[in-house]
């Protein structure tokens, strides 16, 4: 089984990533995730699990932003009717 490094199936043409670099990045990622895994001993959590949690977390955040934007759009619609309230809000923000 030959490792043909010159072939580019997926277009990642960057140089091979070192293990240390990978561990470093995954550690940083794990620090961001809001999980119980942060409190455990840092050696025991595998990179695969970290990546899985990252994907789930990003999907959750996206969903939350979508819900919030729907709610905001509804609120913006309702605020339009009362002009003194809209003026107050605008003055507060600016």
């Amino acid at each position: 089984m030959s490792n043909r490094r010159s072939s580019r199936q997926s277009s990642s043409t960057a140089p091979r990533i070192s293990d240390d670099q990978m561990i470093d990045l995954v550690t940083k990622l794990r620090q961001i995730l809001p999980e119980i895994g942060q409190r455990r001993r840092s050696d025991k959590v595998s990179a695969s699990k970290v990546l899985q949690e990252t994907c789930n977390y990003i999907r959750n955040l996206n969903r939350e932003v979508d819900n919030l934007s729907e709610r905001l759009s509804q609120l913006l619609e309702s605020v339009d009717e009362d002009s003194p309230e809209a003026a107050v809000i605008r003055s507060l923000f600016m």
Partner: protein
Amino acid sequence: MASLISDTEPPTTSTTTDLVRRKKKRSSVSSAASSRTSAASVSCESHTRWRSEKQQRIYSAKLIQALQQVRLNNSSAEATSSPTAQKRGRAVREAADRALAVSARGRTLWSRAILANRIKLKFRKQKRPRATTAIPVTTTVVSSSNRSRKRRVSVLRLNKKSIPSVNRKVRVLGRLVPGCGKQSVPVILEEATDYIQALEMQVRAMNSLAQLLSSYGSAPPPI
């Protein structure tokens, strides 16, 4: 302002992040090390950047401007078409994402991809079928046991990185982060860390804005 994280060399009185970056670059020796420290410095910087009050205020101001523009567009377009609630929510989401990408000041891939998306929608849709056909093939090889393995392994083991599950998950992650579908592994991980923090800040800002608006909707404003 927010203090820098202590895993950088402790700067004494520096308040800007440029000093930290310069110190890190001076200590690096080889080119690989320099790329690593520059990546590390960007991610260290991002830890503080998206969590600072100042950044949140900047983003909130931009968000409000963007939302007012959305509202103007909606009010002008309502006579002609009837925008559904979903379309309005989608417009708000896009405006919020654009404001977020602008706050990133163009230093990250995902922010540039979001801003470029408005212009290049057609190109992106053409490229997508190519990306999605590659991925199911790898997963079927890994999951299937007998039949097609002999034929397909010889084709797919060309790139050593396509087999391990970690790299597969990195690819999935790359598709979630805008603009990182075809990047290398370290780039995807780095972009993901920044993107997650930016999204968290976006959630916080939109949450407080929604609370503010809903409280004004229910009760008369205090003078």
